[in-house]
């Protein structure tokens, strides 16, 4: 039972990180029908942005908050630039071309950061958040330990709380603001939305910006939980988050959250009970099974193809 709960907690933390990345995939797919292969790399860029802030200013509460802010804003800007330069010219092109471009962008971000002198090819260890920074979570962790006798590390609590908070904010933005309404309209029918006076390009840019910002935040959370970063760190979490998005039903925002958590938990149980070597294989097997059995995902509607 002890191991089970421990693995469950690990699964939930990793899963909520996957969920944050999956949100970016799902939102972009919902609007422009593009699998943004480069999305996983925002995780890497966000982690590096946070790394520079934390290593220059030292680790304390202020610098941690600043790290999140800087990473999210930088990645949002970069996301919009990439969308404008690489994806916008291809919006009317066959989807194959857009997909290949996305693969190209992904390689560019990875190999590009590898060549940048301040990032470089070598892995680096991430600054650890100390108890002082995580004071609030430390108290919470102690409280849980006293009440239930079960220990959850403060870092894990941080990940869970930040991820949950970001998801709630996103939920609010999408469902209760004008921008969110416009996003839903564009994803429902781009031409009709355009006729109703919605500026489609702006909405697409905002979607990319939000997705990239969530990816960046996920990057810092990922790097804090697994404190080593390198230019290729985004590939695997990115692919798994994509699987999470498909699992939940691509294009559906709550689906991405559920999918992320499911993937995280499955992965953690595989690592704990079977072997850590098989974890990646099993996650991909889930993707294949879900696409065979229920291509729409858990929350997706079953659509029949009409000819």
């Amino acid at each position, binding site marked *: 039972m002890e191991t089970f709960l421990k693995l469950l907690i690990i699964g939930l933390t990793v899963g909520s990180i996957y969920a944050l990345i999956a949100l970016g995939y799902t939102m972009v797919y919902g609007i422009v029908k593009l*699998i943004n292969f480069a999305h996983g790399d925002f995780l890497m860029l966000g982690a590096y942005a946070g790394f520079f802030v934390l290593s220059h200013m030292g680790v304390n509460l202020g610098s941690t908050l600043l790290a999140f802010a800087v990473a999210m804003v930088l990645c949002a800007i970069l996301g919009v630039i990439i969308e404008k330069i*690489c994806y916008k*010219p*291809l919006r009317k*092109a*066959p*989807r*194959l*071309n*857009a*997909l*290949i*471009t996305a*693969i*190209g*962008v*992904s*390689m*560019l971000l990875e*190999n*590009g950061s*590898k*060549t940048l002198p301040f990032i470089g*090819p070598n892995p680096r260890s991430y600054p650890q958040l100390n108890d002082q920074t995580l004071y609030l979570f430390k108290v919470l962790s102690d409280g849980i330990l006293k009440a239930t006798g079960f220990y959850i590390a403060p870092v894990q609590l941080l990940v869970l709380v930040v991820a949950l908070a970001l998801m709630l904010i996103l939920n609010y933005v999408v469902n209760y603001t004008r921008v969110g309404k416009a996003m839903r309209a564009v994803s429902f029918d781009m031409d009709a939305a355009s006729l109703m006076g919605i500026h489609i390009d702006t909405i697409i840019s905002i979607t990319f910006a939000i997705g990239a910002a969530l990816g960046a935040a996920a990057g810092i959370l990922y790097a804090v939980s697994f404190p080593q970063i390198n230019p290729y760190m985004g*590939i695997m979490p990115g*692919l798994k988050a*994509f*699987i999470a998005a*498909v699992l939940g039903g691509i294009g559906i925002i709550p689906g991405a959250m559920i999918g992320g958590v499911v993937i995280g938990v499955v992965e953690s149980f595989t690592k704990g009970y079977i*072997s850590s*070597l*098989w974890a*990646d*294989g099993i996650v*991909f*097997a889930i*993707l*294949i099974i879900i*696409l*065979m059995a229920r*291509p729409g995902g858990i929350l997706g509607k079953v659509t029949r193809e009409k*000819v």
Partner: protein
Amino acid sequence: MNKQTKSKLLHAFWVQTIFIVVVYSVLSVLIGTGIFSKYTASILTTSSIYVIVALGLNLMTGMTGQLVLGHAGFMSIGAYGTAILLKAGLPMLLSMLLSASLAGLVGLLIGIPTLRLRGDYLAIVTLGFGEIIRVVIMNLEKLTGGAAGLMNIPGLSIKTASTEINTLLTFLWVSIFMILSILAVVHLLISSHGRAILSVRDDEIASEAMGINIFYTKLYVFVFSTFLAGIAGGLFATHYRYLNPDMFNYLKSVDFLIIVVFGGMGSITGTVAASFVLTILQEQLRFMKDYRLVIYPILLIMMMIFRPQGMLGTKELRLTRVFSRKWWRKNLARLKKGGRGNASA
């Protein structure tokens, strides 16, 4: 077949045969005498191996219009299969054919459920399968050596001969398979099956209405394509004599996709040219260190934005055009006039 087409075909056949014989005789002399170093010969051999995989991928992605991202996985099945069978003492050709058939069989088993998926989903699922194959190879430590890899794979060599001759032997062995695969792909495409393949790419619904079984077409192309990847894998194993699972990761599959996209999705000669040019370029740009890794994706993105059909698109380079009397007459006349001769038009 009337007399004119017959003579045209005969002309094409002789032009191509003579061209291949001349090119390969020159290369053989250069490699056999050591003018081309072992390193250069190795690059040429690798390029030829990549031609085979990229042709298979182009058949699937360019001709049938299905984006597949897992060919490195199928290549690894061929490579590991060949290596293991060779170590068990089987003859080379047999072990290559057996393991390529295994790759094709796995392709069949994977293709039946996945080829019903469209576009981007197919890409992700095949990517996933490529990774699963890699994970399986990683975990079958007794058979494959796990993450440490498989060493001392017997290659193609004669004990008494010099290194140059052995290098040449490997090169020619690989080239034979390359030429055979090109011929196979060309003949598939000019058959009625080839017409069906192209029509599936152009419009699935229309070709279904014309009585083409889309799923069956995609499936046999996929199986053939994975078989070619398996053959290439076998050649790869005997050429490098060392294998490890990381040689066949997802980035390798992307490399093949880049070759196909650069050469032109749907062009056989484009794929052949791109395989050689890109592989040689990759070696020549080594002095740029990591920067060369940036040039590729930038070219890929620019290509997709400005020339999405690739260098050649669906066109082919034709030797017969260059080696015909008409072509010479036309261009010489133009040159004499002083006008700028447009060679390819």
